[in-house]
């Protein structure tokens, strides 16, 4: 093969390499959500209540303990799992039971869910239970307007008002 033709072929192959890099570095575009959808992210990091409530030790019990171990209350470490239910327009879209972390199940319950929903105005109801009985005593219900591509984060922070919608 003569030199000009070889150089021409080389140029073609270099161009094909560049075109491949150039195209696949940005294309085809990816749609992370179906068209006309929004996203609800449920993110939780909360320590449930103690599974067994603390009790006051009697004088006899305290006397049996070593002097440095005589704490007035006996508090079992294990915590209750945190339960969360999410309903959209009356239909359940998520139901989570987040077990506490740690070998003794005494840590925080951590959970995350990704819930794609159709864009629009919805009636959102979030209920949370963090005691051993599973009483959903923390509830937030309100109408939310979710534009396409909008991300709504459901969080729970007792110090900031309980169930938060961001």
């Amino acid at each position, binding site marked *: 093969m003569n030199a000009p033709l070889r150089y021409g072929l080389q140029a073609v192959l270099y161009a094909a390499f560049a075109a491949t*890099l150039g195209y696949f570095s940005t294309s085809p575009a990816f749609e992370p959500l179906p068209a006309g959808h929004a996203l609800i992210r449920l*993110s939780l990091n909360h320590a449930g209540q103690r599974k067994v409530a603390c009790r006051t030790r009697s004088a006899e019990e305290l006397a049996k303990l070593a002097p440095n171990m005589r704490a007035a209350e006996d508090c079992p470490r294990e915590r209750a799992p945190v339960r969360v239910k999410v309903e959209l327009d009356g239909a359940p879209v998520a139901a989570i039971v987040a077990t506490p972390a740690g070998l003794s199940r005494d840590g925080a319950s951590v959970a995350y869910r990704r819930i794609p929903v159709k864009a629009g105005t919805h009636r959102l109801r979030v209920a949370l239970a963090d005691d051993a009985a599973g009483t959903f005593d923390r509830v937030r219900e309100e109408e939310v307007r979710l534009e396409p591509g909008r*991300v709504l984060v459901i969080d729970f922070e007792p110090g900031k008002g309980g169930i938060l919608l961001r």
Partner: protein
Amino acid sequence: MSATALPAPGAAAIAVERADALVDAAFGQRLNPMRHLGALGFHFFWICCASGIWVYAGFDTSATGAWESLAAMDRGEWPLGVFARALHRYSADALVAVTALHLVRETARRHYAAFRRFAWLTGLFIVVMMFGAGIGGYWLAWDQLAQWSLTATTEWFDALPVFDGALTRNVIAGEQVSDRLFSLFTFLHIGLPLAMLGAMWAHVQRVSPARTIPPAALAWGSAATLAALSLAKPLSLMPPADLGLLPARIPLDWFYLFPHPAMAWLGPGGLWAAVAAFFAVLAALPWATRVPRAPAARVNLESCNGCARCFADCPYDAVVMVPRTDGRHHPRQAKVDPMLCAGCGICTGACPSSTPFRRGEALVTGIDMPPAAIGELRAELESRTAALEGSPRIVVFGCRWGAAAQALEDRSTATIGFLCAAMVPPSFVEYALRAGADGVLVAGCREGDCEFRTGDALLAARLAGTRRPALRPSVPRERVCLAHAGLTDVAALRSRLELFRADLARLEPRARSRTPPPKRQESRHG
């Protein structure tokens, strides 16, 4: 050659060679980029580092300032910033492309077992670190693409029980990611490439010499291609990250970010399963598949003078020089590590004791190959040359990994098979001519495509007289032909042989002396 089960090219290797032939047409055999994928990987890595350092010099490493600093580059407020950013991206993409091709090619050629196991496994580490560094690099722009990629990655890791949602919370719970977390991303994007460089160093530790620099023409050509692409298609940032929004369409870099769409299709658990299966299969390949292993070279101390040419030429560092153990006056002797030995015979071709001109009926060289002992090859050469008829008479030294030279046999053509063309001691060429051949054709694999990395270059240098053991200057060069012919090039090799035959026919006839064999006449060669 004995009938020991030896490794042989498979159907996939032949398919690779056919594909290579297409690129050979443009680049020639020596410059074919498919034969320099590893070196090109190093090349693109360095381009990526250099351009990255330039971008980093103008980059704000805070979560709140990162996007703006890159936007300022795109506005031309940092010299060459637009160009450097694009070059950084495209060289990183090119690194993935050549790494993928390298992996496919080496798998097809079954280059993962035995003495290649270490390089194979370290290569898998490189792949992991390459993707870690690359994906992490996207987060530093902290635009909507970065935000989506980061969240997708944390969602993937959160599928592991140990995290269980904790990682994603770091990214979505506040109004903005913290500068401390962003500093961690920066650290990862610098630290992982450094670790990757360490793995690349380890990857080439058991080859000698390591080819980490592509030929100049290829290096400049590929660099110019990336530069042209960077000028023609500069990068564009997406809007700044907004944790309350998810963009409808994301211009995805499929070279690095394809795991995110894969997770959308497979789910986080499915992606973990796919990734684990991919690496488990690749990591198990050296043990799971039966690749025959050639017997290792064997040192014969009585013929080894410790010259270290085998040590210098071994492409896998399988030969080391150690203090003499047999009391002879030479200070060193060769020692073969059978775990590293490829069984190629390049060391035998390098050994000056392999000369067939040595006195004595039995030829024992200093370092020999059990499946193809040099003494047996000399005997075969003598008998086959003596049986040649007609004119011109040609001896072909064939390579087990090149075109099947046996197909060229006829009344006036004898073929002798070697484990690798570089196993042919140059003195064998002269010996064949002295024994009655009018010409000698040495048929190796395609240029730059030696199964054992460097055999073709060593052979060419020895025949050209530029590397010892060298073909002696007194050997008429017009009667020696070096042909590069791959597995699928039998027809091309035949054509080359016919041209050579025609050239020989035009030369003056040579006086032939069939007996006695010349080995009893001379003693100093190589």
